[in-house]
């Protein structure tokens, strides 16, 4: 028994006793094994099995990618044309695509992408109808939003399959053999560079780690060591104590964001098309969300370990998986999509991609910014 109190602080008295009792029983069991024929051997073996289980994880793969929902625009140069209309209907018949708008010129195309309402644009050439009947090769252009390469790829594959389907169908009706060639273009990220998603995603995650996790850890640490008690008895108002704890991490988070942006720009050649000032300004609500989440966790937990587990399990994992950073949110089961909508990172990644890759201004992302600010309010009310 050492001078320092060396039991498990977070176990109850009974749990501590049971723990050490079991530990001793293991030793007893070991000793007993050396002398076979002991009366307790069998029983202690069972006990050992029960306790040694520890943590076992079973991960089951969720049946993902079951539905891709892609709102799409059609840029129909062959207007009021029966076969192009047929093609548009055909695309919608699968249920995977819904028609957004029929565009009249290429200029209108980008608006939908910037607003985030359009995921795919189908460009049908002017002489689609006549080519179809004359059996000439047709080139249909598919334009997707490359700032979300995962989603874009999936959409492209779906659309291509649908177009080939359409060709098969037409071939049965018409005798003229024709080919449909699909020409795809990734807007904003022509090479489909993964850095284009990873840089915004990393910024979002690192800001979350620094803000939420480190904040919750540092406050929980003060609690654990008892220093919080002395600070509370001092004339400092509690809010100031929390602010003092939190400010360095906010600054650190901003520095991190800038560092990643610089790295992204110079090393991975990820452009920042929009305004950098706006980008950093938009970090503010997200950092605030992170900090208030961190303080919320720390007020609920009594030890560093508890704070770490809850921020890891409750924040990092969902933010990684359900924010649309690694896997497209739109192809997930509805319930997971709903959870994804609750995660601040989802909105922040949207904002970052908007500003960095599509170069949009505040008018296109103000909804996301407002959602983040709303989250700050709710979280602060809770803490």
């Amino acid at each position, binding site marked *: 028994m050492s001078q320092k109190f060396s039991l498990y602080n977070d176990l109850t008295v009974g749990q501590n006793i049971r723990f050490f009792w079991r530990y001793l029983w293991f030793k007893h069991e070991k000793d007993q094994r050396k002398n076979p024929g002991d009366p307790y051997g069998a029983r202690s073996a069972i006990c050992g099995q029960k306790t040694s289980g520890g943590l076992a994880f079973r991960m089951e793969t969720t049946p993902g990618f079951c539905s891709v929902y892609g709102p799409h625009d059609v840029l129909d140069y062959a207007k009021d044309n029966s076969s192009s209309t047929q093609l548009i209907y055909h695309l919608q018949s699968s249920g995977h695509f819904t028609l957004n708008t029929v565009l009249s010129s290429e200029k209108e195309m980008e608006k939908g992408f910037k607003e985030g309402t359009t995921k795919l644009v189908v460009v049908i050439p002017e002489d689609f109808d006549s080519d179809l009947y004359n059996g000439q090769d047709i080139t249909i252009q598919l334009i997707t939003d490359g700032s979300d390469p995962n989603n874009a790829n999936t959409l492209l594959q779906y659309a291509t399959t649908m177009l080939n389907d359409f060709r098969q169908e037409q071939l049965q009706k018409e005798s003229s053999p024709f080919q449909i060639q699909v020409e795809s273009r990734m807007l904003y990220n022509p090479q489909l560079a993964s850095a284009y998603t990873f840089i915004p995603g990393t910024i979002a995650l690192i800001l979350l780690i620094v803000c939420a996790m480190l904040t919750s850890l540092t406050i929980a640490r003060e609690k654990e060591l008892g220093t919080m008690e002395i600070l509370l*008895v001092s*004339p400092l108002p509690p809010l100031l104590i929390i602010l003092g704890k939190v400010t360095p991490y906010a600054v650190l988070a901003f520095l991190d964001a800038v560092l990643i942006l610089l790295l992204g720009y110079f090393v991975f050649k990820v452009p920042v098309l929009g305004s950098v000032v706006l980008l950093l300004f938009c970090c503010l609500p997200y950092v605030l969300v992170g900090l208030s989440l961190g303080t919320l966790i720390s007020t609920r937990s009594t030890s560093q370990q508890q704070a770490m587990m809850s921020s890891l399990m409750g924040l990092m994992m969902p933010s990684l998986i359900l924010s649309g950073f690694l896997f497209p949110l739109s192809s997930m089961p509805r319930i997971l999509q709903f959870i994804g909508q609750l995660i601040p990172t989802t909105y922040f990644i949207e904002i970052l991609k908007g500003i960095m890759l599509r170069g949009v201004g505040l008018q296109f992302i103000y909804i996301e910014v407002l959602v983040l600010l709303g989250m700050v309010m709710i979280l602060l009310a809770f803490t």
Partner: protein
Amino acid sequence: MAVIVAEHISKSYKDVPALTDISFAIENGELFGLIGPDSAGKSTLFRILTTLLLADHGQGYVAGHHIVDEYKEIRKKVGYMPGRFSLYQDLSVEENLSFFATIFGTTIKENYNLVRDIYVQLEPFKDRPAGKLSGGMKQKLALCCALIHKPEVLFLDEPTTGVDAVSRVEFWDMLKKLKEKGIAILVSTPYMDEATRCDRIALIQKGKILSIDSPQQMIAHFNKPLFAIKTRKIYQTLSVLRRADFTYSALPFGEYIHLTTTQPVVASEIKAYVADNGIALEAVLPIEASVEDIFLDLSKTLETQSL
């Protein structure tokens, strides 16, 4: 004027009562000891008076301010040293001290005269991280930090627990000096032998105050005959004595047995009685009660009352 006043303070954690109806008043420049075993409710009382915890019932005033309504005023005027070592272990001695000076809006220089006597002992280690100090040094540093803003009231929760005997004596000498500077000190300790160093003490057991008085008065008022008995067979002697008619209580006290009797007896009677049961006693001496005897006596009375 009373600096710390507790009026009928009660507090329970869920169903377990921690404090029941605690009332006392501590005067200016008084060294008041809260003496009781572990889990008697001492720390809870400290946390209530230092505005960290709300009492279920009762009122309290510290330095003339109400503990709930004017907690902000109190926080400026008290120095609190929790039972657990609660300084920043990774900061050095000096850094800790200046940190606490800063959060109270003062500097080390301003109040150096108050902590000088203690700080000179720490000076050789001023660059050492607080976590690496010995137990006694840690407590001295914690006391410094609690004193640095010149508080009117000091709350010291078990400052001498886990500290060696020499450091404990030194620590109490320091408290005496501080008291002379007009600071009211409420100190708790589980060690009964430290009680005599306080001006007044409150004996506390299971959340109830058994008695409040100066230790000298308390000893003077103890009216049961008390004997110290030395024997080689402590266990057998105890069981023999406990069966005797004249025994009120017989308890082991180190290498002695302390015996209180219900009626006046003389040492030779006890010796003869035990000898009849086949045990030879080495010595039977009538003695004056210590605070520990009083405490044990009072808690025995409390138990018999509650039964």
